[in-house]
């Protein structure tokens, strides 16, 4: 054992036959436990499955029937609703976060600490606890008196401001060198131009982080759409899965096909932006 110790357990560097076998068994077991069920979902979505006992990871005759039936049940409309919510929700969330981040990172003003404390407080406040009052407020917004119940807007605006994204943007924008901003200011640039042309272009990595996390957060929403939607015309795809399952005419294969459509966007986003994801996860969690 002369190799330098790089990991706690030393399993990864192990070259002995025993170590190799242990590694192979571990990896295989991890894959079976964590990816196996998802593989079963994938296979079942493309198989003729009449009852739950036929869920399997072994393909048995490929078919697109499940997707055809799912589309007949209106899954395409639910998927479009989901895309609408995540598209506009993310746009709003990113816009709100970069604007707020600019003020918190590049300005000093009385009341700043209070604002930061308020944002941290929203993060400590689980949204589930606000579910009931939120549903009352959404049915009659104070002052403006809009009723957002039954609308997709009602699933979007409550997610517009997310403390996590604002704090990530703030931290990142603090690191943009002062000199750049001062040079622009001497050239007569106002705050809006400094924000849009100097600070924002330098924050692309942070935009990646809040984009990926915002997408996953909005796509995974369940309680909010449940509170807001009144009938199936405003269902998002995750909500519709339950309705599909309860329908006796719908086989588990169809539910799995719809589930596959519901999980693909977030899995694709994760696989493409894995670096942003892992980076945000570790920095966000370990700073606290």
């Amino acid at each position, binding site marked *: 054992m002369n190799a330098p110790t790089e990991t706690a357990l030393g399993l990864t560097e192990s070259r002995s036959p025993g170590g190799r076998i242990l590694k192979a068994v*571990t990896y295989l077991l991890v894959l079976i436990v964590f990816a196996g069920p998802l593989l*079963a979902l994938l296979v079942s979505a493309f198989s003729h499955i009449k009852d739950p006992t036929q869920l399997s990871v072994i393909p048995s005759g490929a078919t697109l029937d499940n997707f055809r039936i799912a589309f007949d049940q209106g899954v395409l409309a639910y998927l479009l609703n989901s895309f609408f919510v995540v598209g506009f929700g993310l746009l709003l969330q990113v816009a709100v976060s970069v604007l707020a981040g600019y003020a918190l990172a590049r300005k000093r003003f009385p009341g700043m600490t209070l604002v930061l404390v308020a944002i941290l407080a929203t993060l400590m406040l689980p949204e589930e606890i606000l579910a009931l009052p939120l549903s009352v407020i959404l049915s009659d917004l104070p002052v403006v008196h809009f009723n957002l119940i039954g609308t997709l807007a009602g699933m979007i605006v409550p997610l517009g401001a997310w403390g996590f994204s604002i704090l990530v943007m703030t931290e990142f924008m603090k690191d943009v060198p002062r000199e750049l901003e001062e040079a622009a200011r001497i050239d007569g640039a106002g705050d809006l131009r400094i924000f849009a042309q100097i600070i924002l272009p330098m924050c692309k990595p942070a935009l990646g982080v809040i984009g990926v996390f915002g997408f996953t957060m909005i796509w995974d929403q369940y309680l909010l759409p449940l509170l807001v939607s009144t009938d199936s015309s405003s269902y998002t795809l995750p909500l519709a899965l339950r309705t599909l*399952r309860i329908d006796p005419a719908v086989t588990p294969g169809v539910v799995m096909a719809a589930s596959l459509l519901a999980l693909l966007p*977030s899995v694709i986003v994760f696989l493409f932006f894995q670096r942003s994801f892992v980076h945000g996860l570790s920095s966000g969690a370990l700073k606290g």
Partner: protein
Amino acid sequence: MSLDQADPAALPAAGPATRKTGRAAGGAAGRRGHDRRAGRWWTPWLFLAPALLLFLYFKFIPMVSALTMSFQDVQPYLGNRWVGTENYATVLQSDGFREAAWHTVVLAAGQTAGSMALGLALALLMEGQGRRLGFVRSAAFLPVVVPIAVVAELWRIMYHPTSDGMLNSILGLVGFGPSGFINDPDSSMASIMVTGIWRGAPYDMMIFLAGLTSVDRGLYEAAKVDGASRLQRVWHVTVPGLRSVFSILFILAAIRGLRVFTEVFLLTNGGPDGSTEVVMTLIYKLGLEQNRLGVGAAGAVLLFIATLILTVVVHLLRRRESK
């Protein structure tokens, strides 16, 4: 140098006005120039306005209204009536709520402990570099990004209670079962817990992996020189090095556990026989199905107080430990 001169943008605007109307207006222009500078105070607030407005509408007003609703008999269109602490008495004295609170604590504790133990084990086993290892880690992380609704529908099917259900046939291979899983009051809670751990452990694994990179490699060498075994090394060097990671994960997972809703709602909706009713599913039923918004709000406030106490206690423990 005066403040006005420091601001080049203010000068051209003030210039012509001063020239045209002489001294008195010059004072006004000067004040305007001053206003312009002073006007800067609202620039940050302009940038913050969207965020603050949205927080006000969808976080702070709901929080205040949760508190007021909890002291009221909420009757839409009829007007609310103050009832003092009656809602809290109703909630605290009801067996349903007490049971739900107990189930929530059990579920949160089980999921937190299970996810952290498994997450740490996975992180230790899969620490290091290499393409194959990276692939396995990514695959293991997939459950975290799969929407919770999909996770619940998938596990519902896997938990099929007959002996030829997916998990039951695996249990059968090793000589157990068949279990009723979520359909049996004796195993329903454990089944939800397992599903939660399946989704929570890979998340914890990622955080542990990030924490492991910051453990001093020199200490590993030193432990080796001292003749420590691998397990001793993990126990005496790695685990203490991960202390802050433990407490952060504990808070995150415990809060996540206390507010659990979607997986219970979709897997069992509190059944069978109320064996998996948790606080949030009960609040949902009280508020939106039975329209007892005041009682539901009281339950929500109690849940909030519980999460608050938990967070504060862990922070205090951490502070004392680091001293």
